[in-house]
């Protein structure tokens, strides 16, 4: 009815410029995830265009995301935790014996595992803080200790099976859900854990101090941050999340000796895809969750294309190198 007071041409370019600025701010992980998921949907409609199929996808994707969140806090601190995969192995193998096929043991088992997670994280943090051993070496050593301890406890081979109630976290679904048809427990657990992690990392003083230490440890020290305390707590956080993720993985995957191998690298890859910088100082829970989703989708895509599983390791290696190189080179250009 009324004519605009501005020439029509200006308004539209102004709008597009704003839109473009808004688009540029979106972390790349989301469009990448969308694209890959759409390709999957195209190749396998039953698996990725139906609610049923999508929910199945979330079963392995969720624990990977949990591991990734744990790894993220350590990466944001400027360190590495390479013992998370071994913790997954520990969780699955030790439970196979500890449960003694008796569902009543599930709760004590889980409590024990969380206790182990806290212990492992605490040792990692203390060694890096007080013995000054770089976290890379410390957690590699811890990886050996944890894996060795697990194998020792079960005598080299799984000793039993994982009881159904224990496996429920990773395997079962809530059935008969409107619209979603069914939702895996794993996804619910992920949502809960991710929310807690989001709150802790993005909304507490502790969380902000993690980023401070990772960004500039010296300045943080001079500003009153208790660096050593923050570090120990953060490693504990990571190990506990690894344990929780391990319970979910054991849930849907069952027991086998090699479970958990390489998961630390998958967690790092998921973080890197989610925009975490390997020197510390940057991280976001939601981005990393979708980084894990993307990684899982890529793995599924490669399977879909007929590529045998081992190639996915190779692809992961390429992804890690590629993303890290890209961010290293683009940071250099900025300088």
């Amino acid at each position, binding site marked *: 009815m009324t004519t605009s007071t501005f020439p029509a041409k200006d308004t539209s370019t102004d709008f597009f410029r704003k839109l473009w600025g808004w688009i540029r701010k979106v972390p790349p992980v989301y469009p990448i995830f969308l694209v890959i998921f759409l390709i999957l949907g195209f190749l396998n409609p039953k698996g990725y265009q139906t609610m049923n199929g999508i929910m199945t996808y979330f079963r392995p994707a969720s624990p990977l995301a949990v591991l990734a969140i744990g790894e993220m806090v350590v990466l944001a601190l400027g360190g590495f935790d390479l013992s998370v995969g071994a913790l997954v192995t520990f969780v699955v193998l030790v439970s196979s014996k500890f449960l003694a096929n008796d569902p009543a043991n599930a709760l004590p088992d889980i409590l024990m595992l969380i206790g182990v997670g806290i212990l492992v994280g605490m040792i990692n943090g203390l060694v890096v803080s007080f013995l000054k051993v770089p976290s890379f070496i410390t957690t590699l050593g811890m990886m050996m200790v944890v894996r060795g301890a697990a194998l020792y406890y079960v005598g080299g081979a799984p000793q039993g099976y994982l009881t159904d109630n224990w496996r429920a976290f990773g395997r079962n679904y809530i059935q008969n859900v409107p619209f979603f048809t069914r939702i895996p427990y794993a996804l619910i657990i992920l949502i809960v854990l991710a929310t807690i992690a989001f709150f*802790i990392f993005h*909304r*507490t*003083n*502790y*969380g*902000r*101090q993690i*980023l*401070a230490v990772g*960004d*500039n440890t*010296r*300045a*943080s*020290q*001079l*500003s*009153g*941050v*208790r660096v050593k305390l923050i570090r120990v*707590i953060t490693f504990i956080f990571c190990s506990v999340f690894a344990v929780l993720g391990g319970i979910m993985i054991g849930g849907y995957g069952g027991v086998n000796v090699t479970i958990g191998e390489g998961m630390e690298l998958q967690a790092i890859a998921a973080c890197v895809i989610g925009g975490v*910088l390997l020197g510390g*100082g*940057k991280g976001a829970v939601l981005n990393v969750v979708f980084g894990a989703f993307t990684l899982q989708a890529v793995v599924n895509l490669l399977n879909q294309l007929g590529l045998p599983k081992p190639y996915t390791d190779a692809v992961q290696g390429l992804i890690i190198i590629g993303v890290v190189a890209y961010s290293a080179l683009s940071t250099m250009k900025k300088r």
Partner: protein
Amino acid sequence: MLEEIRTTPAEGSAPSQPLLEVRNITKRFPGVLALNDVSLSFLPGEVHALVGENGAGKSTLMKIMAGAYIPDSGEILLQGERVSFNHPREAQQKGVSIIYQEFNLLPERTVAQNIFLAREPGKFGTLNVAELNNSAVSVLKEVEADQLISPTAMCHSLSVAEQQIVEIAKAISFDSKVLIMDEPTASLTSTEVKILTDLIRKLKARGMAVVFISHRLIEVFDIAEKISVLKDGQLVGTVMTRDTTPQEVVHMMVGRDLDHYFPPLGRTEDFGDVVLQVKNGSNEFLKNINLELRKGEVLCVAGLQGSGRTELAQALFGVIPFKSGTLEVNGKIRNIKSPPDAIRLKMGFVTEDRKTEGLLPMQPIRDNILLTVRTLQPLLGSIFKDGIRNSRKLVPTLAEQVDLRADTFDREAQFLSGGNQQKVVLSKWLSSKANIFIFDEPTRGIDVEAKAGIHDMIRALTKEGIAVLMISSELPEILGMGDRILVMRDGQIAGELPAKSTEQDIMLMATGHSSSQDAKNNESVGKE
């Protein structure tokens, strides 16, 4: 391999061709004009000293001569021919060597390995160890150190003086004609200085031109024939040592018109109780520090590079704590062993190097400002509760207080200008309610306009009763801001000067040519 240059004139004879000449050198860095049309020449067989206060341009000039920087305009002539150095190695090969204050030696390698790094003797990629060591011995002979230093000694086991000799030997092995030395006597004992002086005389006798950059006028007058004074990037003048006195040189270094207006100094009635007192404070860097800081005053700490000012700030803040003596805050004896101790005592420390020690470059402004406050709160406390006020209001309030202008507080700190970054750091300490502020070079690297803003702000802080200890290398700033002035030298307090002192008073005390007593009596300063 090692020849002497037979162009040495006897003193008093006809002037010879300069070995190295720089003409009309200008060099700019973001925000500062480091060198402005400087021309100098360096004659063979002469020790030519370059002096000037911190930031006068000496370091930039010497790096240009050594090939580490490229000048924006001007030319360099080596024995009359125009040259341009794109890499320090080029300068070295053409005969210009530089010895930095920090030495470019590999501590875990031997003397011989260091001297001949990347030039090792040997065929087809092999290393001829015997020849390496023998060549090192020959070079050491040239500086008469072959009995003192073994070619197979590890560099980390040598004293500072011995390492310096190795650096000189390295320069000689390049057949250098010009040797630039940056603060060579800074870490030497007096006996070692004597050895160095003798060595330099030998280099002179070989016909080398020695460029000697130093703050220590005693040594400058002892060793150099010529002195050139730089000030604010320009050449003030060149004098023959025998024709001048340290006082005159100091005058050339500092005399300037006050073109910058500072906020008015505090008056005695503005100053309150003593909030910080140190008695006999000592540690590995400081000796017998005695100082008092009162509410509402600005205590400026002056001194040359290496005099211990930053170490003093670090001791007060618990970074490198005092090992003996007492420290009282508000009358109570306190033990400050770490930054959190100091912060809890309501102290704040705006460090010299904000980029590496003050700022979190990848975090938004908001998180930088709130960092210290958050460390005082419970770990799992929500970031929206900060015990003072909702953080959404706190940040803009502080930003206004320090006149920090940013389009959004979510911008990463690394993208701000130097002046704004400094304001962010300042806000951080304001938010933690510090009432004792330590500033270390608060306006370094900041443009003139922002500087004035920071000075006004510091004064405003004192009006609220905050006590300020300010370290600075800029004499006008010290005089413009200092209600009292402490001068440091060699890790000790050389003396205290009142507010109406002159730049000369400060510089003389800093270089060791007068004492607090003399300044008060206004007598002529002691002879060296």
